[in-house]
Structures are given as structure tokens and as C-alpha cells.
């Protein structure tokens, strides 16, 4: 049983100490974490962005990522949507008794890799172990802080009529990659989750134009739900063109098979930007230079009427409303 997580690993005693030292601190080492104090102490100046999220994806490993990479990328991307440079993250692991130590280590290594790529540090954390059946393998809770550069004011309520809507790449990869691994539903696909940290992409976009009005990462609920949120927050209408929205053929095919609409399928490495018309081309160009924005496209624009609504021009040239997602397309994809 030595290679399995036991309840004692979370009890605060010797096993806990060893787990933290060997499995976490070793992999995630940095001066702030290494102190092992109960809180990380650091100085920051300027306007801060602060966010929290929890990750319960099932299965915990999926093509293109795992729960560790997802936790880092998701938190970083939430900070990036306010224009912030993501800096420090906390991670709390809730582990189901019986998880193999090697699986946990794989997740921690993946956290380390993603944090390195995103340029953030894991500065504090916690571990709890719960009895078998009280959790599903592993849940991760995070918090993150970042600093917003001067002159940047990004909010979901800033979209203005005339603005262009830019999407950073193809939609639906994450949701389909995860669901392809589900028990009872598994199907063969070469699709990988798009799970990626977008702090760098956003920094380059802001360099091209500090006047970006809104940013949003379309995760659960997909592109459709995020655009609806933006339209409602800004009290504007968003008009998109179906033929401009990048979707991979494999996602289209899986959606046909499963009865999904790609507009509602989750992403974990995409960004929607709402940008004043005069800056749209500059921002688009900057995005296409970044590896996470290579397929970026202008997919539509903001109009005044009807406020709070997303309208799509279909490939056939007709128009239809694109509503918020109703209910749960796929439970526990993030």
C-alpha cells in the first residue's frame, strides 16, 4: 500500500510532512514556498487582480492535459481576462484515499510545468485526504493574484457598439477531448484539450493595444455562453458570423455524434477579445504571432440592438439567436 495515498497522509503527522516535502515542495520549489510558513509573504504594487477556482474534472488525465495543468491554466486565464500579469498561485489538494502516489506525482509535475510556462509561482498550498468515496480521486482548489499594468481597464461591461469580436482559435477541443475518455462513452479521436496558459498571449495583445475593452475565456458553457454574458454585462448586442468561427472537423464530427453544438462545448485555452474597431487588426496580428493565437479570427462585432442578445448569421445567410447554454451539456469537464 506504500504507493497509495492513505488517510494518514492528510493527518498532519509524519506522512503528511513527507508527502509535502517529497511530492510537492521538491517539484514546485521557489523561495516563497520553500519557507514552509503557513502563509506566503510578498510585496506587490499597483492594482491587483485576485481570483479563485476549483477543479473537479473527470477523468483527471485526458488527452492534452490533466487536472494539474488545468488548475494552473484556468487560474492564470481568469487573471489574464482582467489584463493582469499573473504572478502567484495557491493550490489546495483534496485527495481521495487510495489515489496512487505516482498519479499524484504526475499531476504535481504537470502543475510545475504549466506554472513554469505561465511564469507563475505556486507560493502556498494545502493537502487534505478524505475517505474513499468522499471525493473522486482528486480535486484541486486554487487562488491567484496578478498585477494589472497601468492604463489597462478591461471589463465585461466595456463592450461598445462598433467594437470587433476576436476569438483566439478553434473551439470545442477541451470538452470533446475530455468526453472522449469517459466510461461508457469513450470514442477514438486524435483531439487534444486546448488547455493552455494565456497570460503571455494577453500581454502581447495589450502591447498591441492597451485599449482592449473586454476579455473572456470561454470555458464551461462555451463560446455561446461567454458572448451572452458579455452582451448582457455591456447591455449591447453581439453579432457573429458562423463561417468565421474556427472549429476543427474532428470537433464537428464528435458534436454530430453526441448531439452537441460546438458553440456550447468547453474550451480551456481560448480567449475572446472585444476591441475598438481601429485597433482590431493590430490585436489580431499580435495574437496570430503567439502560438496560442495562431488561428485567431475576427468573428463578429458589437451592435447596440437588441441589448443582451447574441445573434448569429448562419452559413446559409439567415440569422438566429444564440442563447446561453441551458442545463449541463457535460458534467465535470473542468
Amino acid at each position, binding site marked *: 500500500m506504500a504507493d497509495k495515498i492513505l488517510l494518514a497522509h492528510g493527518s498532519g503527522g509524519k506522512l503528511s510532512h513527507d508527502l509535502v516535502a517529497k511530492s510537492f515542495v521538491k517539484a514546485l520549489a521557489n523561495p516563497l514556498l520553500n519557507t514552509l510558513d503557513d502563509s506566503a509573504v510578498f510585496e506587490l504594487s499597483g492594482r491587483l487582480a485576485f481570483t479563485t477556482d476549483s477543479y473537479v474534472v473527470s477523468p483527471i488525465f485526458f488527452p492534452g492535459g490533466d487536472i494539474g495543468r488545468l488548475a494552473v491554466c484556468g487560474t492564470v486565464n481568469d487573471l489574464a481576462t482582467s489584463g493582469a500579469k499573473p504572478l502567484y498561485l495557491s493550490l489546495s489538494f483534496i485527495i481521495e484515499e487510495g489515489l496512487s502516489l505516482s498519479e499524484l506525482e504526475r499531476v504535481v509535475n504537470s502543475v510545475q510545468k504549466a506554472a513554469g510556462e505561465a511564469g507563475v509561482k505556486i507560493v502556498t498550498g494545502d493537502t487534505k485526504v478524505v475517505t474513499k468515496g468522499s471525493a473522486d480521486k482528486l480535486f484541486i482548489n486554487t487562488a491567484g493574484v496578478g498585477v494589472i499594468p497601468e492604463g489597462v481597464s478591461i471589463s465585461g461591461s466595456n463592450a461598445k457598439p462598433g467594437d470587433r469580436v476576436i476569438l483566439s482559435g478553434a473551439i470545442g477541443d477541451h470538452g470533446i477531448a475530455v468526453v472522449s475518455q469517459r466510461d461508457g462513452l469513450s470514442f477514438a479521436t486524435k483531439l487534444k484539450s486546448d488547455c493552455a496558459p494565456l497570460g503571455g498571449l494577453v500581454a502581447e495583445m495589450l502591447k498591441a493595444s492597451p485599449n482592449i475593452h473586454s476579455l473572456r475565456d470561454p470555458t464551461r458553457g462555451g463560446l455561446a455562453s461567454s458572448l451572452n454574458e458579455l452582451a448582457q454585462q455591456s447591455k449591447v448586442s453581439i453579432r457573429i458570423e458562423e463561417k468565421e468561427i474556427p472549429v476543427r472537423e474532428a470537433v464537428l464530427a464528435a458534436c454530430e455524434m453526441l448531439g452537441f453544438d460546438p458553440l456550447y462545448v468547453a474550451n480551456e485555452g481560448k480567449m475572446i477579445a472585444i476591441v475598438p474597431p481601429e485597433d482590431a487588426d493590430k490585436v489580431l496580428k499580435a495574437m496570430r504571432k503567439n502560438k496560442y493565437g495562431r488561428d485567431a479570427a475576427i468573428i463578429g462585432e458589437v451592435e447596440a440592438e437588441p441589448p443582451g442578445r447574441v445573434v448569429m448569421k448562419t452559413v446559409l445567410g439567415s440569422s438566429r439567436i444564440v442563447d446561453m447554454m*441551458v442545463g449541463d451539456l457535460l458534467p465535470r469537464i473542468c
Partner: protein
Amino acid sequence: MKYITEFRSSELGEGLIARIQQRSKKKVRFMEFCGGHTVTIFRYGIRQLLPPTIEMVSGPGCPICVTANADLDKAIALSHIPGVIVATFGDMLKVPGSRSSLEKAKAEGAEVRTVYSTMDALNIAEANRDKSVVFLGIGFETTAPTIAASILQAEERGIENYYVLSLHKLCPPVIKALLDSGEVELGGLVCPGHVSAIIGSHPWEFIAREYGIPCVISGFEPLDILQCVEMLVEQVEKGESRVEIAYRRGVRPEGNQIALGLMERVFEPSPARWRGMGEIAGSGLKINSKYQRFDAEVSFDIKTAPAVEHKGCICGDILRGVKTPADCKLFGRACTPQNPIGPCMVSAEGSCSAYYLYGGGRGG
């Protein structure tokens, strides 16, 4: 050939629309039988693109929608029998019966499992030999063969705790009943694609021959629908009525003989209850005497109170094509996808759900 993007091409679509607009002179009403077609028509805004001469109405081709409350009540009652696991396709969970739904029964402690394939239900039975697993056999000729196959597999693998509540329905008989009622006058029928992949085109011929109604079997992509409408218009303008297959990549005139063979081995035609249409002779499938021991109806003592309809819900009228969701007082107000009152709002193939989702809760 990738089979999806080609059938969503803007240029080809524009060409088809132009040809339909040019050719259509007579005022005509077409019914798309299948819920899958209704969804495509709404998702791509196809009604807006057709000339004013063409009216499209939705038909009864949504298996969940047409399941009568009395049958839904049976499924719910089964789930409350101790030792029974009900296995079902996910769409069924939220559908309200007379007094409850499977989702509510589940919350009350009934064991209801969602499966993606009938074979998963069989595997659940194999893994839970001390329980009885009842699969809800809902669907048209498209799903019936897979359920027949699961019964044959159960026999082969010696799985004795697997049962099917067969609520299967057959499409040609319901269309006949609809036409005989004289309630809706139709100038053309968009025939179901996947049902026809199984049964072929021959079973539709009586409609063209006896009722003089043009029939075209359609696929589910936007160009499929437009091509089908174009072919229907062509027949209408020429004053002809034939059965044609627009969905050639999926349908052969003789259908799928293997699937039909499976159905014949396990099922026999029976009367079936349809929401809004009552009992229609020969429109259902029941498990035949040879495989009777798999029949949940025979094996369990299912007790239900008399079925009642939801007050104000007009799903029955909508399924017959005599009313649209916009005519319903509950639509978009009391009845929404989050809080559905009628089955047409629950099923992904239901007319109300399509009107709501793609019309923004305000109808087409």
C-alpha cells in the same frame, strides 16, 4: 469527403435557395416528420430563407415527445420497484409523466442510470446480477434494432436479469393516421433519414401513391434539407408524387436488411399510444412470445394511477402539426428548458426546445 463541412457550404446553399425561390410558384405546406430535421431547420434559420409560397410544419418525429404519459408513468413506477435499476438514454430523465419524472424518482432514491448505448445497459445487468435491470426501449425503427440485438446478446451471454420496457414506435403508421385524420393538409413530406436508413424507401410509397403526396427522404445537414425541399418543390410544380431519396449516402431503397432481420426476430407489431393521437393500431413493437421473458411489462407487476395530462400543455397538438409552440400559453413562460412542463421542451429534438433555443425563447 469529410461529410460535414461539405454539407454546410455557403455557396452551395445559396444556389439551392435561389433555385427553390425561382421554381416555387404553388402555395404549399411541407411537413418535416423528424425532430432532427426540425433542429437543423431552426439552427440554420432555413424557414427565413424559403419563399413565402412554402410553409414548413414540424411533425411527430421525436420519440421522447410522442411517448404517452401513461407509458412514462410505467417507467417511473418501475424505477420505484425495490431491486430494479432503470437504464435509459439521458433525454428521458427530465420528461415529466403525470405526476413525477425519472429525475425526481432518482432524487427520491430510485436507481436510474443514464447510458449511451443499449450494450451499456446490458453490462450494468451483468455487473449487478442481484438486481433487475430494465432498459427503457424508446425510439423509432432507428433504435429498435440495437435493442433487439441487446436482447439476443443477453440470451447468448446468459444474462437473466435484463429486461426491456418496449415503447418503440413505427413511423409509417403514424403518418397514415395523421393523414387520415384530415387535420393537416400536406403538400409534401420530408421523410426521416435515419429511420429510412433502416426501413428503406419502400414503406413510404403508399403516401405518394394513395395520398398523392410527394415524399423525399432527407439527411440532417442544412444542404440536405435544402436539396430535399428543392426536390419536393420540383414534384409539386410538375404535379407529381413519388418517393425520392435525397439522403443517398445513408439510405438504400431496400433499407438495412440485417437490422430489419434483428427486429423481426425479437419484436412483433402491436398497438401503441401516442401523445396527442391516442392509440394507433400496428404503430408499436412488442417483444414476441419467444423472448417474452425479457419483457418488463410481463415480468413485473407495474402499478400506475390513471394518467393525467398537464393543464395547458399543447404538445399533442404541436406533434400533429396543427399548432406551433408560439400558440402555447405556457411556452417560454411557465415552460422553459430549465423547467419543462411538456416533453417537446425537454427533448433535444422537440419542437418547443428548438423554437426556444434558436428563436431566443420567443418562437420562430
